[in-house]
């Protein structure tokens, strides 16, 4: 499941949505990205974003044994300590849950069409994000 939204998300609720009523999940990993120190405005390419997030989910499901995947990305204006992004992975085993969550974040950072602006300045992409994504090839 993936969503793009202006509202905040609730990690407990999102984990419950993946796990409730099942007893075949042994490991849940959540990654939350937060705003540090600055005020950011996030814009995205509506339509392409949803396609890219669905593709990331499908890729992760093809590579790891997962019982569930959630990706939520916020847009609009966000303040210090606000949540930006949430990835949750559920699996039988911790290795699958951890690796899939890292993969999703690395790819999201390099392929999902979101852009951050800090005041009038667009945030520049980091080479380290490209390097991180490379390792999954």
């Amino acid at each position, binding site marked *: 499941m993936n969503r793009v939204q202006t509202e905040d998300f609730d990690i407990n609720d999102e984990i419950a949505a993946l796990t409730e009523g099942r007893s075949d999940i042994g490991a849940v990993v959540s990654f939350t990205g937060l705003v540090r120190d600055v005020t950011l405005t996030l814009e995205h*390419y509506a*339509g392409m974003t949803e396609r890219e997030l669905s593709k990331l989910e499908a890729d992760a499901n093809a590579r790891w044994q997962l019982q569930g995947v959630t990706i939520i990305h916020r847009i609009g204006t966000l303040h210090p300590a606000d949540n*930006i992004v949430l990835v949750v992975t559920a699996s039988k085993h911790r290795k699958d849950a951890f690796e899939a969550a890292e993969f999703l974040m690395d790819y999201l*950072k390099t392929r999902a*069409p*979101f*852009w*951050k602006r800090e005041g009038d300045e667009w945030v*520049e992409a980091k080479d380290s994000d490209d390097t991180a994504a490379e390792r999954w090839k």
Partner: protein
Amino acid sequence: MKLLYFASLRQKIGLPEEDVDVPAYVRNVADLIDWLMTRGPGYEAAFENRKLIRAAIDQEHAKLDALLGSPKEVAFFPPVTGG
């Protein structure tokens, strides 16, 4: 052809999107950029550093040498910075 511009490219060009008739020689993404750069200083500034240009044809990432075909939309944007 419908073109969309995002983030710093939208600011430099001054438009979020536009419909254009492209000349026949425009076959791939790089050709399209070359042609757009002839349209004024905003475009020139936007596409100046080709290393920092990313494109998508019909909402799929496309390289500079990707053939355009007959797309519904072509988008240009800087490297993404979400997450």
